[in-house]
């Protein structure tokens, strides 16, 4: 007798048929109810933040897409204990009547999911999830007020979400009077907790204000305090262009779908049509590499043929995707943004040139506010942003924070205990702009650790760090110069008296002689109360992506007029001086349309490689030199840019 025969035979518990009776579609809304932590509603405090955040992000995206300078009002009122009413009102384009229920009460409905374009929201899950949460915790419907233009009627809609069908349930829909020309107001009532600190709503709005200098915001907190942030820039961010997927970033399933959807097209034509940067010649060589007949009808391609195509797409050399789809904030505006939150300090910023990970273009920017009203001995405040949205949770899991921790800030004259943030009156701003931000989870709290991202973040931090160090040194020098000068000036009258008496000259005569000699021994320059941020020169690979001249808003030309003059002069100077980085600058302009996928070839990358390899070992002297060069190159670069604007 074998052992197997001894054990009892397992009893069948159900049949395929009986199981089928229990199988039914799971609505997304239902899924959410059970998994709300995935979307950032895990606890009452976070729920309040996420609600505000989703509404504000939506408003900002809508305004920018419509080309309207956003003016937002956020009001949070405590209805009863742990129950808040959140109202977010914008001056956006409004929403047409038919779409209102779907946008606010249907999960996974939106305009942003289907395209590759930089935006704050991505999945279209946010605001409806907030509505769902509100409904689940208080039973109150979502209230929407929207108006699409002057002279048109505003609509007031009350909604509920049918969680089983993932369908909106319109409770009330009426025409109302609204004195606004256009805009949308969303009101939600939810259970939540209002709290301050890094993860609070207040911090979120303060940071949003930094990353969106063009935003005008009025915020009424549950405590009844009203904060007003007037617009710091009249310039709307350049509109992000939608792009087609890049061959290097495509997934097999997506490729399958593309091919199936490409009716009446050959495989070659389908590749050219569906991808960015794929020319007919390139498509031909991809097909050849994959062993696929280029003229075979795309929908007829076999699974294994598509698999081979997918492999070939990943291997073939392709130009990087156009960087026009990524909109950085820009160095000047980062400084303008930082000034809204941190006062009286020095500001530094640097915007990296576009780079690519898995076929997705991205730009990293960094800003530093130093001194002023920032606390002296505290660890630096780190402000993380992805597509201008503040990231407040999970700093430890985020690639951005990691880059800040990993950098040796002692190289830049700051103190930094082991494994800690640098200490000092400093705030570090880091912005990652990308068509597709690789978050670690759907809650969009932390950025995943892609080596390409980490590298760019580190380089941006280093650029800012260098400028900060330079300025700190210059300042220390000027401070000590001022002290020296003060000392001499204090004693000169005494010498005037005694030497005057001894030599029979007037006191004033002697003093005059000494004062005339003084400039030979001290730098007479007064230390400025605040060093202008342009002191170090903007980073190479300047503010906006090099491929598109920025489209300034109507107010911005005037705003910039005095600067332009200066810049023109600088430009002239730059022309006169053969900068040692002339070659690199040329390489920059050669990048006109795209970033090279293999960046090691450009002179700039070499310089960077040297810099990062040098790391902490470089002497401070060498760094000063390097900084100087940077600024020179930066200046001439800036000149070029402004010429473009003119």
């Amino acid at each position, binding site marked *: 007798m074998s052992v197997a025969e001894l054990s009892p035979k397992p009893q069948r518990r159900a049949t395929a048929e009986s199981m089928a009776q229990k199988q039914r579609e799971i609505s997304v809304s239902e899924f959410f109810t059970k998994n709300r932590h995935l979307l950032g509603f895990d606890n009452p405090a976070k729920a309040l933040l996420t609600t505000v955040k989703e509404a504000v992000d939506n408003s900002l995206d809508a305004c920018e897409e419509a080309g309207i300078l956003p003016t937002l009002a956020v009001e949070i009122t405590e209805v009863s204990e742990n129950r808040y009413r959140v109202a977010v009102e914008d001056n956006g384009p409004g929403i047409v009547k038919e779409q209102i229920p779907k946008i606010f009460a249907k999960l996974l409905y939106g305009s942003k999911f289907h395209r590759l374009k930089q935006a704050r929201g991505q999945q279209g899950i946010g605001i409806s999830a907030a509505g769902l949460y509100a409904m689940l915790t208080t039973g109150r419907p979502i209230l929407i007020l929207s108006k699409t233009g002057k002279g048109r009627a505003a609509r007031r809609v009350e909604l509920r979400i049918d969680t089983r069908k993932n369908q909106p349930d319109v409770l009330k829909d009426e025409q109302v009077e609204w004195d606004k020309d256009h805009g949308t107001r969303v009101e939600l009532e939810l259970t939540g907790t209002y709290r301050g600190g890094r993860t609070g709503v207040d911090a979120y709005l303060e940071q949003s204000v930094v990353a969106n200098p063009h935003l005008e915001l009025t915020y009424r907190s549950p405590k009844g305090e009203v904060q007003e942030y007037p617009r710091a820039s009249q310039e709307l961010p350049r509109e992000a262009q939608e792009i087609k997927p890049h061959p290097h970033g495509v997934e097999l399933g997506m490729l399958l779908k593309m091919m199936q959807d490409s009716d009446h097209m050959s495989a070659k034509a389908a590749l050219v049509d569906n991808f960015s940067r794929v020319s007919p010649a390139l498509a031909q060589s991809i097909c050849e590499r994959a062993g696929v007949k280029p003229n075979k009808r795309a929908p007829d391609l076999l699974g294994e043929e598509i698999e081979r195509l997918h492999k070939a797409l990943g291997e073939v050399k392709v130009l990087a995707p156009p960087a026009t789809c990524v909109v950085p904030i820009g160095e000047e505006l980062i400084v303008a943004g930082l000034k809204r939150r941190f006062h009286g300090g020095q500001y530094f910023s640097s915007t990296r040139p576009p780079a690519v990970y898995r076929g997705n273009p991205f730009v990293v920017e960094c800003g530093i506010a130093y001194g002023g009203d920032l606390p002296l001995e505290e660890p630096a405040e780190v402000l993380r942003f992805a597509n201008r949205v503040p990231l407040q949770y999970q700093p430890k899991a985020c690639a951005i924070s990691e880059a800040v921790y990993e950098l040796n800030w002692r190289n830049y004259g700051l103190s930094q205990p082991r494994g800690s943030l640098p200490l000092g009156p400093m705030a570090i701003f880091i912005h990652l702009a990308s068509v597709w931000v690789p978050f670690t989870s759907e809650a969009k709290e932390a950025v995943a650790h892609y080596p390409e991202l980490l590298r760019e973040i580190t380089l941006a931090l280093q650029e800012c760090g260098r400028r900060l160090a330079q300025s700190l040194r210059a300042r220390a020098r000027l401070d000590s110069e001022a002290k020296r000068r003060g000392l001499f000036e204090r004693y000169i*009258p*005494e010498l005037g008296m005694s030497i005057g008496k*001894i030599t029979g000259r007037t006191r004033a005569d002697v003093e005059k*002689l000494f004062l005339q000699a003084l400039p030979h*021994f001290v730098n007479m320059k007064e230390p400025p109360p605040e060093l202008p941020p342009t002191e170090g020169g903007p980073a190479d690979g300047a503010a906006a992506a090099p491929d598109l001249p920025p489209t300034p808003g109507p107010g911005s030309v005037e705003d910039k007029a005095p600067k332009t003059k200066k810049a023109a002069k600088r430009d002239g100077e730059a022309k006169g001086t053969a900068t040692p980085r002339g070659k690199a600058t040329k390489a920059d302009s050669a990048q006109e349309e795209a970033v090279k996928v293999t960046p090691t070839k450009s002179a700039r990358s070499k310089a960077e490689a040297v810099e990062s390899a040098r790391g902490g070992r470089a002497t401070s002297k060498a760094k000063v030199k390097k900084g100087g060069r940077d600024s020179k190159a930066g200046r001439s670069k800036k000149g070029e840019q402004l010429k473009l604007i003119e």
Partner: protein
Amino acid sequence: MATKGSLDKARAVRAQKTLGKIEALALETLRQVKRADNPALELPIRALSNVAFSEKHRLIELGDKVQSREFFNVSMAKKFMQTFLVAGACKDLLESGKTTSIRDLFYMTKHTIKGYSENTFDDQVESDPIIEDLEVGLDALREELHLFANKKGSMVGPMVIVDTGDEIDLSRMGSGGWSVPSITEDYVIEFKKSEAEFVMLVEKEAVWHRLNEDKFWRKHKCLLLTCGGQATRGARRLIQRLNSELKLPVYVLVDNDPWGLYIYSVVKQGSISLAYESMRMACPKARFLGLRTRDFKEFKLSDEVKIELLKEDITRAKQMLAYPWFAAKQWQEEINDQLEAGFKMEIEALSNKDISFVTDVYIPQKISNKDWLV
């Protein structure tokens, strides 16, 4: 004999000469400033690093190292300013024909700098070295700048002197003695009649008082002198003059400790900070009478008078062992004796035997036995 009038005239001539030096210093500074050079005063360095012991002259001499005191230099600006402040005050003194103490000069030059909370000088400790700097810088002595230190020191003995025109009989000075002025140059002090056969300098006033009361100086025909510690410049100059002009041997009696020995050393070969005056003040033939460590046994002193050497005594003694002017065998032995014995004694220890032991036994016996060190 010089009359008061001729003394005044000589004095005025010297004052004029010093005034010229001060003015030259200031004019040179102005010339430098005009050329936009950093105005600098060249001052010989008064520190151990710039003194040497001359075997030939048996003196501590100033070397030729010079420090440049610049105005446009953060660490020197204040001292530069102070130097001219003192120079200016000296000019006032010279022109008015008045002399004053260095303490007085400190107050003359001390004031709050206009518009600041800083003082030109905070302490006399700051102004004294500036005066010495000026002395070497101008190659003018303190008295030529019309300055003097607070007088300190008393003298009695069988001698008549003329002090600024006043005739003084030093054998009729009662219990207090004649107080030695700060300036004892021949244009101030003139030796007239002298029956003295030697000079006796004692460190302690109490011992001087004992010897004076016992009329030691009358019996042994000596000039009895004390400064109550380190000999002042006036006293040293006077001792040197007595030694060189009147050929009187000089005996020094000090406490048996490194500090006492150094008092003798300064009388003998000069000090480090005033090395530039050694030629005028040192008395290389001065005889070290005691107290010596071996006196304890020789005079059968009791154990009660021993004082244990302190840490700083030992440090000082070791420092002195390294000075070139203590390099001679007898001095090395003397200092090492003390370090080995581990105790020190005051001169007053002699009174433990008898109140007049120092007068009746100790000094006479030492001198007659030629029991001294040079």
